[in-house]
């Protein structure tokens, strides 16, 4: 069988792609990582040597075919190699979120029954050691950074480089075995198992085959004409399907270079140095970056600020049109060119986006204003709609057809269907194999014909074929008077304001909508500094009367804009409060990918919601918080509950007509 797949010329596994790249593009860089202040690089040839040594070391350590190997660490070449080495020996790599608490890790490690763990450093090793008594199948752990590890019992602990050395030393003995195992890999063998972040309930292990990954990588690379000269910066969690597809699937398919930042804090500097051509980020990253730009422009001199404002207005008017190749007058083209010289060019350079040819945002809806900002600068930012279960791609926006209110047309090879409830279903070569050890969920998500329910409500625009997503199917509801309740829509409008980091809207089955708001500490803190407002903590700042006033203005502005949409005008925010703590994944209020867990927030802050609806002016509350090390504490505060002005819907309509 192995012979036939090779004979067919099929590159049916990641290790096979690695071998092709090492043979054909051996001298091209495959990985770069900044270490000790310098970009260290590995060519495809070096990469194959590294991975082979590691794979031999894993066999030497006793890894069998079908074993699960958990990988815990931030984006570093070593962990990408670990994943491919695991595949080469017939094992299944399971990347984990490295910021998970030990408890969450215990669940996943136990669920997949990982016999081996490859961890980054002492912090991760400690977490696994903390829970290892409960992990019956766990046997050996490999760590990358030896710092602080000297005193540990090394009977089951091994240093990464030692495993590679041992593998290299035993190459004569194990190379035939490695070749035998790698040759057996085909389209049907498992490529990777990724745990979904679990907006609801326990995480589920999504099993993706080589077919899923390689077909998706191939189709999407063709869609955007990705080639071997792309540069990407790998900084998103390795446990997330997106990173796996971009940094492994597409990178191995196209043989382009994956760059790893020095540390999470140096991300922005590293981004600037690398200047990626293909860039991917969740909306939050774009939001944060825009917020930073705006804060810094607020601090700039009058002349610079005026210049910025003038040319940003030009960009807003004509930038997206130029990007989409639509007709623009000569005068506007000249102003835009000047703007590019003075403002957009330097700005893009500062943001590390000078060379971005294709940029994607996904994971959540992006605020239209944020989206337009980047496009107006001439950055080809597009939206993508996808899921782990689809190996990312469901729909994508083709060049020249980019709009902020749709998520684009079906990706190559994807079929779409909207069911009677408005829920979006799809079928594609990327559709996952099954949920590991969870046949009930597999059956309820994926039907016999291979259609998968997305859990999102949406519709396909008849004339353009673009898909529009309204909200999570289970979040979309009806208000007491029967009008549509779509919380995301309003929350995204709120979140566009730099001062607002997060918003949660309530109102399903009720007569009015209420909102929780999280302020953005960096934006509001900077504003407070400029206005001589003293504060000592997040909580104090969040409760400051002038902050509340500013937030109230924002809420009312959103109400005005929501009122313009006939279908959703019932979702205006009647009352709101500013939360005394940031919603946090450690407290279970958000997923690790920073999506709000609506139900949990609703339960946890029930007292606050009651108070909002009861019309109280303020409420005293105590909230339990979990620190990063897992200890618990509590914070209490008296929160002000504030009324916001509502736009009369009817008169608005009359005025509009």
């Amino acid at each position, binding site marked *: 069988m192995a012979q036939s797949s090779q004979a067919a010329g099929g590159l049916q596994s990641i290790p096979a792609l690695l071998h092709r790249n090492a043979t054909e593009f051996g001298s091209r860089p495959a990985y770069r990582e900044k270490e*000790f*202040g*310098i970009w260290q690089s590995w060519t495809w040839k070096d990469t194959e040597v590294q991975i082979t040594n590691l794979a031999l070391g894993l066999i030497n350590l006793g890894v069998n075919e079908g074993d699960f190997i958990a990988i815990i660490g931030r984006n570093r070449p070593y962990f990408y190699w670990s994943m491919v080495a695991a595949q080469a020996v017939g094992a299944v790599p399971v990347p984990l979120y490295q910021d998970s608490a030990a408890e969450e890790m215990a669940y996943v490690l136990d669920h997949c029954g990982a016999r081996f763990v490859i961890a980054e450093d002492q912090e991760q090793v400690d977490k696994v050691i903390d829970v290892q008594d409960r992990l019956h199948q766990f046997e050996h752990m490999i760590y990358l950074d030896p710092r602080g590890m*000297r*005193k540990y019992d090394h009977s089951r602990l091994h240093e990464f480089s030692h495993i590679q050395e041992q593998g290299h030393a035993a190459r004569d003995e194990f190379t035939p075995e490695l070749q035998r195992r790698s040759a057996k890999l085909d389209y049907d063998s498992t490529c990777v198992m990724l745990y979904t972040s679990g907006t609801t309930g326990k995480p589920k292990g999504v099993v993706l085959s080589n077919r899923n990954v390689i077909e998706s990588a191939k189709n999407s690379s063709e869609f955007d004409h990705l080639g071997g000269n792309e540069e990407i910066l790998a900084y998103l969690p390795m446990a997330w399907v997106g990173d796996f597809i971009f940094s492994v699937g597409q990178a191995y398919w196209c043989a382009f270079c994956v760059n790893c930042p020095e*540390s999470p804090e140096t991300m922005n500097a590293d981004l600037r140095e690398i200047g990626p051509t293909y860039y991917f980020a969740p909306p939050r990253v774009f939001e944060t970056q825009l917020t930073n730009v705006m804060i810094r422009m607020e601090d700039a001199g009058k002349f610079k600020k005026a210049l910025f404002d003038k040319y940003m207005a030009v960009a807003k008017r004509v930038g997206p049109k130029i990007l989409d190749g639509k007709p623009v007058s000569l005068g506007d083209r000249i102003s835009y060119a000047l703007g590019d010289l003075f403002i957009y060019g330097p700005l893009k350079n500062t943001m590390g986006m000078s060379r971005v040819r294709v940029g994607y945002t996904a994971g959540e809806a992006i605020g239209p204003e944020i989206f337009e900002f980047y496009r107006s600068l001439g950055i080809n930012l597009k939206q993508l709609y996808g899921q782990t279960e689809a190996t990312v791609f469901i729909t994508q926006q083709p060049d020249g057809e980019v709009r902020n209110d749709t998520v684009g047309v079906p990706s190559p090879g994807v079929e779409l269907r909207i069911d009677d409830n408005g829920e979006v279903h799809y079928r594609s070569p990327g559709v996952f194999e099954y949920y590991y050890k969870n046949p009930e969920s597999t059956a309820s998500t994926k039907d016999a014909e291979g259609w998968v329910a997305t859990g999102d409500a949406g519709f396909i625009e008849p004339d353009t074929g673009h898909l529009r997503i309204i909200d999570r199917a289970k979040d979309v509801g009806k208000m007491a008077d029967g009008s549509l309740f779509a919380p995301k829509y309003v929350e995204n409008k709120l979140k566009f304001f730099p001062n607002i980091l997060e918003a949660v809207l309530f109102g399903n089955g009720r007569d009015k909508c209420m909102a929780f708001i999280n302020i953005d500490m960096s934006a509001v803190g900077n504003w407070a500094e400029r206005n001589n407002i003293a504060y000592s903590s997040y909580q104090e700042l969040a409760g400051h009367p002038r902050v509340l006033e500013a937030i109230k203005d924002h809420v009312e502005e959103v109400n005005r804009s929501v009122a313009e949409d006939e279908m959703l005008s019932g979702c205006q925010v009647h009352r709101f409060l500013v939360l005394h703590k940031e919603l946090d994944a450690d407290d279970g209020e958000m997923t690790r990918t920073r999506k709000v867990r609506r139900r949990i927030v609703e339960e946890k802050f029930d007292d606050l919601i009651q108070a909002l609806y009861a019309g109280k002016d303020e409420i005293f509350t105590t909230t339990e918080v979990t620190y990063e090390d897992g200890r618990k504490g509590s914070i209490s505060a008296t929160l002000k509950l504030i009324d916001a002005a509502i736009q009369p819907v009817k008169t608005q309509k009359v005025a509009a007509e």
Partner: protein
Amino acid sequence: MTVQKEEGYVTADGRKIGGTLMEMKNITLRFGGVKAITDISFDIKEGEIRAIIGPNGAGKSSMLNVISGFYVPQEGEVWFRGAKRPPMKPYEVAQQGIARTFQNIALFEGMSVLDNVMTGRLNNMKTNMFQQAIWKGKAEKEEVENREVVEKIIDFLEIQSIRKTPVARLPYGLKKRVELARALAAEPKLLLLDEPMAGMNVEEKEDMSRFILDVNDEFGTTIALIEHDMGVVMDLSDRVVVMDYGKKIGDGPPDEVRNNQDVIDAYLGVAHD
């Protein structure tokens, strides 16, 4: 004090402590009529973390300044690596392998973090000013070598993101860390830390404690530190010297010192559990 043998001992967590690195014999230091230190003797063994504690004005910083050679005591002897140390200039002490940080941060505020840490390598640079001005050749090679050492320390202390930031722009906790980096850049045998945790919040203290333990563990550096935070001292150090009014009132492992009645009276006020 009965547990330790003359030549080294083994700590509770299994680290082997070597022989005597530095010994202070009957040190007395006077400023005019004021006796800052009266007849104090203690030793620092190779590989250990040694703390000096005491209430305000007890003479801790004076003691550290004696060790670093900044003050020359009127009476007593300082022995370092088996030899009696004659009165020395501070830079000569540094050349012997003793580096320090300061209570009230003494960095070059206008220079970047990297440059500040590079100054810690000064004693390892052999080229002269003229060679450095010409730059090509020897000076360049030397800078590359030293930069490598410095980058490893920057990586170790996790300050990569502020490598190019001027020190003046940094918050206090980070400045402390930069100071530690500069001291480490000299690759000292003995590292003196003057109140490394002063003015820090809990998280910064935890980080700093971690770094101190890691430095000791990874580089095998002997550390002598002065600290006010009792929790930190008791957790970090292998042996503690307690001073009060310029006199030594206790010396031994943290648990022993904690239960010493003189120490409780003078410093802790009440018994800790």
